[in-house]
């Protein structure tokens, strides 16, 4: 009954990054597979399809809404703080596979009032190779998603030799916003319920036909086991949601969850209880303004 989740990216690097993001939210309990967006033609193979905002529109034309989760991926605070340390004025190249996310990163920096820096998007999949290499040769500062400004893309043989020696590279590990992480958990819960319901229906059918009391007891035990298995994950969900929240602040920090209220709670109850905890902070934030 393992739920199959497709982690979609414009390329394999991003698809793998989405896998990591999902693992950060739910752990290793699900069968995850990285998939390149343009290879997806139908929605039958997986129970749930997860992609980033940049692929959301295209995927919505293929995948039905109940099977699609669009994650809003954002860098943690430390990435922006590192950028703010760059002495102004300076040209900062945002190295990314597509232009859309490069522009989003630029917008996020501006929202945080990181000023007097000139952000130049460098969407390497949308540009001519020579043009990318020329820009890289001029760049003193290159920023972007950690996996893309690392060995997999920027530091690969394709570009590495074209980068100037005194370049500063700042990479970010992206995490899902708590809003989209909750949406993901909610859709996952619906699929879990559906799958479990189907399994229970089969067992209940057997139970109805069973004439031997020994067999009946065995089926009843199996039913109990299924129900217990579902509620077991709630403490983990609470922990991971708080982790998701903390990761948006800094990848290295972790908020410890109080699990006293989560015993026996469903995933939905766990999400709501975590949000209530965080909302307490939100109320404090808003009333003090």
């Amino acid at each position, binding site marked *: 009954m393992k739920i199959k989740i497709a982690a979609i990216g414009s390329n394999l690097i991003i698809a793998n990054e989405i896998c990591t993001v999902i693992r950060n939210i739910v752990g290793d309990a699900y069968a995850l597979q990285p998939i390149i967006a343009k290879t997806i033609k139908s929605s039958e193979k997986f129970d749930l399809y997860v992609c980033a905002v940049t692929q959301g529109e295209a995927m919505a034309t293929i995948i039905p809404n109940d099977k699609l989760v669009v994650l809003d991926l954002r860098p943690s*605070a430390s990435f922006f703080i590192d950028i*703010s340390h760059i002495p102004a004025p300076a040209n900062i190249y945002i190295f990314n596979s597509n232009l859309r996310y490069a522009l989003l990163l630029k917008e996020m920096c501006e929202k*945080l009032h990181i000023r007097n820096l000139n952000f130049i998007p460098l969407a390497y999949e949308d540009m001519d190779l020579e043009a990318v290499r020329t820009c890289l040769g001029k760049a003193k500062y290159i920023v972007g998603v950690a996996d893309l400004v690392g060995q997999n893309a920027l530091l690969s043989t394709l570009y590495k030799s074209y980068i100037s020696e005194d370049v500063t590279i700042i990479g970010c590990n992206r995490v899902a916003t708590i809003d989209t992480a909750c949406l993901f958990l909610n859709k996952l819960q619906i699929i879990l319920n559906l799958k479990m319901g*189907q399994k229970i*229906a089969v067992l*209940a059918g057997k139970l109805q036909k069973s004439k031997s009391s020994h067999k009946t007891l065995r089926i009843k035990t199996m039913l109990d086991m299924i129900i217990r298995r579902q*509620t077991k994950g709630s403490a983990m969900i609470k922990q991971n949601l708080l982790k998701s929240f903390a990761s948006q602040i800094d990848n290295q920090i972790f908020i410890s969850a109080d699990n006293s209220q989560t015993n026996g709670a469903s995933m939905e109850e766990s999400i709501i209880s975590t949000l209530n905890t*965080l909302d307490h902070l939100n109320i404090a934030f808003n009333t003090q303004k």
Partner: protein
Amino acid sequence: MELKQLEFFLTISHTKSFTRAAEQLFVSQPSITAGIKKLEEELGILLFDRSKKQIILTREGEIFYRHIAIVMQDIAKATEKMAAIKDLSEGILNIGLSPLITLTAVSYLLAKFHNIHPTLTFKFIENSMQGLENSLEQEKIDMAFVFGANMSNNIEYAPLSCEILSVYLPLFHPLCKKSSLSLQELRNEVFILPTYDCGLRCLINKLFQAMHQEPHVSFETNYPQLIQNLITVGSGITILPTGLLDKSILKEIPLDHTDEILLYIAKKKDRMLSYPAQKLYDFLKNSYSA
């Protein structure tokens, strides 16, 4: 990191003073100072410039503050979206039942749904077929479990499970030794059957009509306990869904050559059900569509 450290950070940012933040949060100033120091160590940055009389955010502190503000907006958005789910934590589901329904399989699904949403209350209302349809149309009940679809234009029916019919006899009945029984073999028997307004009676009557027979009915009732007692004392036999009556005091023998009867879940067409009711309806429907 603890959430209270973030609260300390936000409060100091607003009050521009460790002392005032401590007063506002009802904690000691050393706790606030220690909390912020720990946060700064974890983040690896200095959040506040303490060199001036009034505490101000450093450049990194300002970026951190704005970042937190975005994250907080995000939490507010998530809380709003999850409010719909909160509706599942309370409420009463009114469910109609056709008389003499066993619901063996369905009861496990209902138990499962209740296990996920333990604070929901399920209220079962038994009624005749017509009564249930009226209650659905008047929105007095959310959904109903019925035998056979009446094909009313205003009601939507989804098949759930199949029920098998059995003949129930007193333990001393001469037919008790048979492993199965046909309607033909029952032609001289006296029957205790459900009333005409019960969906099940219509289905039983159709079976007899197909065999060009008319059942000889001595009692009509929808109370299983009464049917059971009447059979035990030899007042007749009955045909009902398998598993409905107590096998330890009656003989249950499968009825031959009859189609399985379908159990349906019914709801008013195009009615916008409450969030928990819709979830239960989808849960039951989807569980059986597999």
